[in-house]
């Protein structure tokens, strides 16, 4: 037992828990029966309080390791504590890529399941758990092997269930065949939001990967100016020197907390301007490394320290296709409130999974990084919640650190289904986190 102060990637709301590091499934099971309040934690990349339990027990999943052989069809079994970074280091040289990766490689496979993470290919390939064929789950009432065909109810409750059904110890999933470690990228610059949105709506289907960076601080005619990058894995014939190298470690690091005011409206505006101007107006078929394309921020260790002592929140929501104007309304609300926000990420979502708490739904998603500090920020985000709710959309739990709990049930109408499954495997409500308490996801 080791009392440790834990917080999410946004560095807000720390709490202290007893951190234990189980090495076996039996270890995990023993902790789940012995602890009244317990949650698993991976690499701590949830932005808010999803992987902390104040005064309770936090199971560090990092010793639940091991990467099995990758089969002919790409099937591999990995320990839940393995990071996507570690998996790629093994799999890329063999010609396999993870079927879904979020914007960082520094997430554990267990965490990827708990948040049912998505990547730039959601509009084509769906979320992470779509590619999971089976997993081992330790619950307070026993350990189970679950899959989309074997106790599908529990499998899908766990996909996006934020760790509240139990602790995932290993995951079997299908990898994606690649011929090179390069991506062919098309880049386009748009001076306003409607241009990029119509380009995405009409053209994303032609690409496996697509994402737009949106400037949320420019007002007026250029509101929501964007850079759209879309790509495909390069085939052997597409590049000069085809190779299969794993990801490189970060070369830069932020060694200490920056002063809280470093990222202010002025500096962020300047950064956004630079970013926008440095992108090519139109470029086709540029070869980029997998890391550059998928995980640009992984090049800088601890970049969250740039936000200083106060930390930051990430606001990510999705809305159905027909509510595309909510994206416009949200960006206009943000840019007019002059709350500083870093380049936002705009993406299209494809089909949802059956997971009752899985975040993606067919339509649009927008994610913004916002430094804590501006007095107007809490109210502006509450207003955005209303917009999102009204449009039939929802907020992503893995990013959340401030949602009003009274809005959760309307955003996740199948919360009741989730709680019923949770009650079956966790009748005494042992699985709980600060996030679950804050958003009333405990079922108590």
């Amino acid at each position: 037992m080791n009392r440790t102060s834990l917080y999410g990637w946004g560095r807000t709301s720390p709490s202290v828990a007893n951190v234990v590091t189980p090495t076996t499934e039996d270890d995990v099971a023993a902790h789940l029966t012995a602890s009244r309040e317990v949650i698993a934690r991976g690499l701590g990349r949830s932005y808010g309080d999803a992987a902390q339990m104040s005064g309770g027990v936090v199971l560090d999943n990092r010793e639940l390791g091991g990467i099995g052989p990758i089969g002919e069809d790409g099937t591999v079994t990995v320990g839940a504590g393995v990071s996507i970074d570690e998996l790629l280091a093994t799999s890329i040289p063999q010609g396999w890529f993870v079927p879904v990766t979020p914007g960082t490689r520094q997430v554990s496979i267990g965490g990827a399941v708990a948040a049912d993470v998505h990547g730039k290919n959601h509009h084509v390939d769906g979320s992470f758990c779509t590619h999971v064929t089976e997993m081992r789950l330790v619950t307070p009432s026993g350990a189970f092997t679950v899959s989309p065909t074997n106790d599908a109810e529990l499998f899908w409750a766990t996909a996006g269930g934020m760790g509240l059904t139990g602790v995932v110890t290993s995951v079997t999933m299908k990898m994606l065949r690649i011929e090179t470690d390069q991506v062919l990228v098309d880049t386009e610059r748009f001076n306003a939001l409607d241009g990029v949105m119509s380009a995405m709506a009409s053209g994303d289907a032609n690409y496996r990967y697509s994402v737009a960076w949106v400037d949320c601080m420019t007002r007026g005619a250029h509101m929501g100016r964007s850079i759209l990058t879309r790509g495909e894995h390069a085939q052997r014939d597409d590049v000069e020197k085809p190779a299969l190298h794993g990801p490189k470690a970060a070369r830069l690091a932020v060694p200490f907390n920056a002063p809280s005011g470093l990222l202010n409206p002025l500096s962020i505006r300047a950064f956004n301007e630079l970013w926008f101007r440095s992108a090519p107006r139109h470029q086709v078929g540029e070869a980029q490394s997998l890391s550059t394309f998928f995980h640009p921020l992984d090049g800088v260790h601890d970049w969250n320290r740039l936000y200083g002592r106060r930390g930051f929140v990430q606001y990510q929501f999705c809305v159905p296709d027909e509510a595309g104007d909510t994206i416009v309304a949200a960006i206009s609300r943000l840019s007019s409130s002059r709350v500083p926000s870093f380049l936002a990420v705009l993406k299209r979502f494809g089909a949802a999974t059956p997971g009752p708490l899985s975040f993606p739904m067919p339509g649009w998603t927008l994610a913004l990084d916002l430094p804590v500090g501006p007095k107007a920020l809490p109210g502006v985000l509450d207003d955005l919640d209303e917009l999102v709710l009204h449009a039939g959309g929802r907020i992503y739990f893995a990013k959340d650190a401030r949602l009003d709990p009274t809005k959760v049930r309307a955003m996740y109408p199948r919360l009741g289904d989730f709680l019923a499954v949770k009650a079956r495997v966790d009748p005494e409500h042992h699985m709980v986190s600060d996030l679950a308490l804050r958003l009333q996801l405990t079922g108590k």
Partner: protein
Amino acid sequence: MENAFGQPQSVVVLGGSSDIARAIVKKLCAARAHTVVLCGRNQESLNAAASEARKFGATKTDTVLFDAEDPSNATATIADAFEKVGEKVDLVIVAVGLLGDQATYEDDAVLATRMAMVNFTWPVAALAEVRRRLVAQGSGRILVMSSVAAVRVRRNAYLYCATKAGLDRLSQGLADSLEGTGVSLQILRSGPVRSKMTAGLPDAPFSTGVNEVADNVMRGFANGDRVIWNPPLLRYVFAILRHLPAPIWRKVSDR
């Protein structure tokens, strides 16, 4: 649990009918607070504060009666309040205190002791128990109402100023001791506030209304400032005032 902006869901207020505390509680309830337990000496005014909290969004309120002149009840009072919250306590506001009339207290040992008891000794006893409980809980926030009076003692209210100074210094040490426990303590150093405590007195320089105090506290919660100044400018004003030579300070502080 409190959120990333330091907005709590459950609140205990010691000195629950204080005007400043009520203004803060209103803002907290309008944000995320759903459970509020108010502790004080007058049931009627606690009830009024509780119904106000509900009007602003609290769904569960309760009250605890205690007498701040008797520090031996502090532990039981805190226990009762935490029990009534019934979940993790996100925020404890320490707003116990009386301003008193210096002229009637200064030559009376019994009255002077009473002032020290209410403004300092009872809060010390209460903070010990609050600290113990929150540290065990692994999270939580404490707001201690100090005063700019704690920064430099005025001769026309030296008893009040001294008790606040004691509480302020205790809180600084307590805040440091809490580092790494998941619990934090913030000190509110307010200038003169127009409230029932100062009713009838002429407006002093840098006076603010209770709503302005509450706004600055909300902002201080979000930013995690160790000392919340109200109005914020007083941070700089007192940086100078505290170093004035005593004869000049006497002149300035008499005004």
